[in-house]
């Protein structure tokens, strides 16, 4: 027998088992690789560099992706160890048999090690290929420019070797164990089914026959049962976090963006300024902005007559005039008293950055930003509200610069030598959150620019929107041909669509893990069915109907799944609500959606797990016995 001939033929002969292991490995490797490629594409790493979204939203998503990546890798590792362990453990009997007929230990070990190497390499290579294909498909389906970056190919060897090493380590263990066993022991079902050594427990003695057989069989295979319950519990944590967390976080973050841009708002500005402002909002989904733009160009100034004219139009709920400028601003450090030592502690430093400064009239604001602290409410105070990205760039502790304590709400921001007290930090998609709001009059005072360059117009939602928009456009076109009106709902939709697509991909990846977990469950149920094969044959020969076999295995599968479901869902919900999303938006609809999806996953897993049961029930008794 050639040393390559036997392993290859043996793998081909055991088509179902071989393909189960290869497909499981492929899915695990590809889902891990896809998540890494996607995260890298979006810039979610340990250091978030804000090219899309805002710092706050990147943090929410990044934290989410990091947690999912951790779970996916953990599950991948557990699944790999489990499926490879199952595959090789089942070979213990063959190992014993070959040794019993005189095949040298080293040669038998070599045969099975070659088998392990073949399936591992095949699974990992296919996984890497599928991972890139999935990434390529996602980047082509989603047309946002940020997705069009080329992937980081270095992730391929990283993921490949991680899973290759894991598979070899976990697969070689049962082989080494089998090599140490005398043939007689290796041939015992106690070894190859990992059975308990004694039937000391008699659980559910008073219950029906089917329930009794099911529960005792599960108890007897305690080790494998616990493994699969732990594995499926982590899968359900992942699913709950991905689905409930994803849906809740998606709803929450979409609401934040919608409030900040404003629903039903229309932009009125000079044609060039209009394009630039839209670009500032489009940077949220990866569009490149023009950093040399001169906002103070006098051509952009909105004439006072425009505002007078707007008052004559119907269907307008409010007009929010704004002055948008780019300014080089400076952080102002502060001090605080340590309550214990009463020592003075410096807070922050004097960091400098270019930000978009927006002057607004607090009495006329038509948008609503989600703000930590408070938003501007008076024109008379020298107050400012900074975007979350400004906070990260200028007001975060930075040990490399020896800034240990920093808190924007205790500090100020200096614009053209005038300090503004920071009273809030907001989530705002404008310029990726690199924005600062100050009272319009104060900004006009410090810059000497006495006009405004954009106006946000809130349309009355009770009146026909299209009609009002058309009237507005006609008014601007006729009176001020250099100016234009832009429906901000268009850019808001794109912002939200980008956010939605990002969340969708993040939520889709755990589905790949679910597939591999399903295959793992099928593997476990195959082991279960195999272990009880003779007994099922006896039951059927004595008068059990084929459905009895399905019932026994269904109860075992349901027990495993429900135990995992209960543990996984509880942990998943706690994790989602407590850790991942601050101030979540949870509606009855969201809960129903999550519940339906999770139950569908449970039901799907149950159906899949019954495949070995149905297959065995359809097998003639004689074939089972022999």
């Amino acid at each position, binding site marked *: 027998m050639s040393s390559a001939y036997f392993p290859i033929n043996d793998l081909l002969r055991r088509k179902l088992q071989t393909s189960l292991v290869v497909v499981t490995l492929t899915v695990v490797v590809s889902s891990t690789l896809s998540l890494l490629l996607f995260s890298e594409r979006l810039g979610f790493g340990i250091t978030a560099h804000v090219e899309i979204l805002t710092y706050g939203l990147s943090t929410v998503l990044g934290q989410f992706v990091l947690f999912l990546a951790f779970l996916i890798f953990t599950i991948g590792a557990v699944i790999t160890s489990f499926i490879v362990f199952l595959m090789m453990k089942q070979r213990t009997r063959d190992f014993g048999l070959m040794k019993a007929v005189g095949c040298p230990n080293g040669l038998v070990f070599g045969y099975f090690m070659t088998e392990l190497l073949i399936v591992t390499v095949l699974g990992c290579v296919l996984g890497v290929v599928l991972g890139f294909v999935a990434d390529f498909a996602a980047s082509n389906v989603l047309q946002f420019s940020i997705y069009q970056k080329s992937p980081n190919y270095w992730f391929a060897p990283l993921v490949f070797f991680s899973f290759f090493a894991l598979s070899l380590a976990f697969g070689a263990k049962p082989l080494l164990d089998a090599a140490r066993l005398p043939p007689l022991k290796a041939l015992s079902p106690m070894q190859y089914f990992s059975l308990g050594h004694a*039937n000391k427990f008699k659980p559910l003695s008073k219950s*029906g*026959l089917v329930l009794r057989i099911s529960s*005792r*069989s599960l108890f007897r295979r305690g080790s494998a049962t616990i493994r699969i319950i732990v594995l499926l519990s982590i899968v359900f944590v992942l699913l709950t976090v991905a689905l409930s967390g994803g849906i809740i976080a998606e709803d929450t973050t979409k609401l934040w963006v919608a409030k900040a841009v404003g629903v039903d708002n229309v932009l009125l500005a000079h044609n060039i300024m209009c394009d630039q402002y839209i670009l500032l909002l489009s940077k949220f989904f990866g569009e490149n902005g023009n950093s040399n733009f001169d906002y103070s160009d006098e051509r952009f100034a909105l004439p006072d007559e425009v505002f007078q004219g707007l008052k004559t139009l119907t269907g307008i709920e409010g007009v929010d005039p704004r002055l948008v400028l780019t300014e080089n601003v400076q952080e102002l450090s502060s001090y605080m008293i340590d309550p214990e030592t009463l020592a003075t502690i410096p807070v922050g430093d004097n960091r400098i950055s270019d930000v978009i400064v927006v002057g607004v009239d607090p009495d006329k604001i038509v948008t609503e930003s989600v703000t930590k602290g408070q938003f501007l409410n008076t024109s008379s105070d020298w107050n400012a509200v900074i975007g979350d990205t400004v906070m990260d760039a200028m007001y975060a502790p930075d040990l490399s610069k020896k800034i240990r304590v920093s808190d924007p709400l205790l500090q100020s921001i200096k614009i053209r030598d005038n300090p503004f007290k920071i009273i809030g930090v907001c989530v705002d998609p404008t310029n990726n959150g690199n924005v600062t709001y100050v009272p319009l009059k104060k900004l006009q005072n410090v810059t000497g620019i006495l006009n405004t360059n954009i106006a946000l117009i809130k349309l009355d939602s009770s009146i026909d929107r299209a009609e009002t928009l058309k009237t507005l456009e006609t008014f601007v076109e006729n009176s001020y041909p250099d100016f234009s009106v832009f429906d901000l709902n268009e850019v808001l939709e794109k912002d939200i669509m980008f956010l939605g697509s990002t969340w969708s991909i993040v939520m889709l990846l755990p589905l790949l893990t679910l597939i591999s977990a399903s295959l793992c469950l099928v593997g476990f149920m195959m082991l279960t069915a195999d272990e009880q094969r003779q*007994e099922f044959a*006896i039951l059927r020969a*004595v008068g059990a*109907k084929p459905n009895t076999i399905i019932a026994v295995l269904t109860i075992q599968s349901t027990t495993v799944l429900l135990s995992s479901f209960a543990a996984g869902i509880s942990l998943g919900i706690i994790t989602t609500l407590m850790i991942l999303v601050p101030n979540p938006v949870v509606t009855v609809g969201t809960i129903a959606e999550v519940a339906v999806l999770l139950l569908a996953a449970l039901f799907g897993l149950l159906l899949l797990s019954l495949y070995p049961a149905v297959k065995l029930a359809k097998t003639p008794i004689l074939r089972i016995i022999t």
Partner: protein
Amino acid sequence: MLTENPDYTVVAVGLCKIYQMGSSEIEVLRDVSFSVKKGSFVALCGPSGSGKTTLLNLISGIDKPTGGQIEVLGQNVNELDEDLLAEFRCNELGFVFQSYNLVSTLTVAENVAFPMEWRRRPEEEITKRVTELLEMVGLGQRANHFPAQLSGGEQQRVAFARALANDPRLFLADEPTGNLDTKNGEKITEILQILKSMGKTVIVSTHDAEIVRLADQKICLEDGKLVSQNE
């Protein structure tokens, strides 16, 4: 109907069984015809590989013939679907295999009881019958033990008790003493004697001379062919 005579428990006409092994065919039974009278004790004899187990499998409906017909207790077992066959085996047949007889996750008492549970007999009746049967096979004290805690002979006796649980009209046993030592073999023979005295129809495939001696009818097979049928 192969015969209108209700005195016959098994009637087989021209039974053939061919197994397909890859591209080759193995003819295990060739044109076997016989009948078994109600209440008779039949010994199925012949060397290993002569087709005894296959014949028992065909009688019990565990396997289907490639050709010919077989009627058991007035039923053409070839025509029954899996569910009806299961019911038939549960209610009318008792079958003891040479090995792998018991469900390892159930205790001795539970192993004997489960065919009755399928018939939904009252719990008190099941308990009484289990005690009765275990006493009959001499294992009354082992009711709460698991199969792994019994010897091979004891396991085989439990299998006999289980096969009798639903008071079957036809009792089949495939080399019941084949794996046992002389002492345990004798005990099994004693049980078979009890069954004979109870007037059960019994078909046993065996090499055991003691069991053959009990037989009213002897069916001998060789290379799948019926070579003799003595009453």
